[in-house]
């Protein structure tokens, strides 16, 4: 698996912003999940996943996001999806992801 990719993350206080890019839609997206888990375990209060660079989210992407949601639900980290396109937000709505995260 490709572990050499750099996932853009910005840490500010107890908020971490992670940029999903298009890594999310491949097996390499597991690295995003790992980075998020690290932040959650490190006591991060708010985890922002930014979709500015993400055109579409496929099933692998959804599965990885569910992994992030699952990890966050086990601590008191809240998850925010930001800059989600209209199509993607409709998809998240239909799939029930919006029950677990805040769209911003």
């Amino acid at each position, binding site marked *: 698996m490709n572990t050499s990719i750099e996932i853009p993350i910005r840490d500010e206080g107890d908020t971490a912003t992670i940029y999903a890019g298009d890594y999310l839609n491949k097996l390499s997206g597991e690295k995003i999940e790992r980075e998020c888990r690290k932040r959650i375990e490190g006591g991060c209060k708010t985890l922002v996943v930014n979709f500015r660079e993400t055109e579409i989210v496929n099933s692998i992407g959804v599965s990885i996001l569910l992994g992030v949601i699952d990890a966050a639900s086990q601590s008191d980290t809240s998850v925010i999806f930001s800059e989600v396109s209209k199509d993607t937000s409709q998809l998240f709505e*239909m799939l*029930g992801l919006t029950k677990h995260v805040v769209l911003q």
Partner: protein
Amino acid sequence: MQEQQQQKLIHTFSALADIGQEVAHKNNFQEMIQTSLHLLLGSLAIMRGGVARYSKFGHELNFLAVRGLGDDFPLSASLEMSDEREFLNTGMSDIELSQAKMLAFFQRYQKVLDRKRIEMIMPLIVRDQLVGIVFLGEKATGEPFTKEDKAVIQAMARHIGVGIHQRNLMAELNRRAEENRQLYEGMRMTYKDTVRAFATAIDCKDKYTEGHSVRVGRYSEIIAEELEWKEEEIEGVAVAGYLHDVGKLTVEKTIINAPYRINAKESKELNKHPGVGYEILLPIQHPYADVPLAAKYHHERLDGRGYPDGLKDNEIPYIAKIVSLADSFDAMTTDRPYKRRRPFNEVIEDMHRNAGTQFAPELVRAFCSGILKEVTGENKSRRFRRLLGPEYMEAEGLEMSLKDALNGMNATKPLTLIASG
């Protein structure tokens, strides 16, 4: 609302297309399963799940990929025969956990499955065989699985099942190939041991030429090596060398061991041994061709003055020519009751002189070149030293004789030179 439905439909269909691609084209099995599980969970936003492979032999389920099941989830589980039967009866359709409590499997693993909130399982059945099981948790919506959801899960699970089945077939194929290889190897070893035992038995009969057959086998092997033959061909020639005198087993021991030059009558008796050897070897299924022919014709000469049939050059099987040279070389380089062995350089000169009349010139050349390589140190295997003794290799003028022989034969001597008269 309709727009949203459409988004979802596209999402699900792409997942279906992707999983087909994944199973058909991914070479890495582990990654294929991991990606397939992502696709399955992500297509319907299922919170957790796992794919397990079923081993028929161990009645065991082994998880190949899990998501969201935590570190304490058991990665292998055993199945009862009755479970397997039940799954096969159900076929590839979903089993909701709430309705499956009577299965032995669930009774055993109910606690952990409940704790991990597994809601549904689907047996993976390919060609009437259970190859694995998919475990699924709840949907992100919290709603129950719809009929459409189940159809999607079934279609995707089918792909995963085929992927596992293909992997099983490959493993089985490799296992059988390995088993065959070992079987063949074992048979070859048995054959070789038998051949060596035979060679030793033949040599026992002749106390003056102890180890003759074994050495002829080795020399024949060396000639074939010098000719750069394939491995199994080299082995075949070696076997022919080991067994070339098997017919001597039926010759009176007193004739073989006569401490003098035998008379005409005794000689006639002794000369039957190639034909008898052929008769002995013919009914045996050898893994190599021409072993019986080598025994029959190893006393033939290129000029037709050999026995038993007086064959000439082209009529003599090639393998017999090799064994003949190896046989004569050993006769010249070992002490006999009535004759001490001759110095190495003289033996080389003798072979050179008789190339074209008694021996095939290209074989003499190959043999001499093999010896020269060891004399000059180019070949470090010490194969001749071991067979002839180190002091014998020190013969004066040996290197010269070898080079003369090689030059002489390279120059003009035709392959077939038959002595007149």
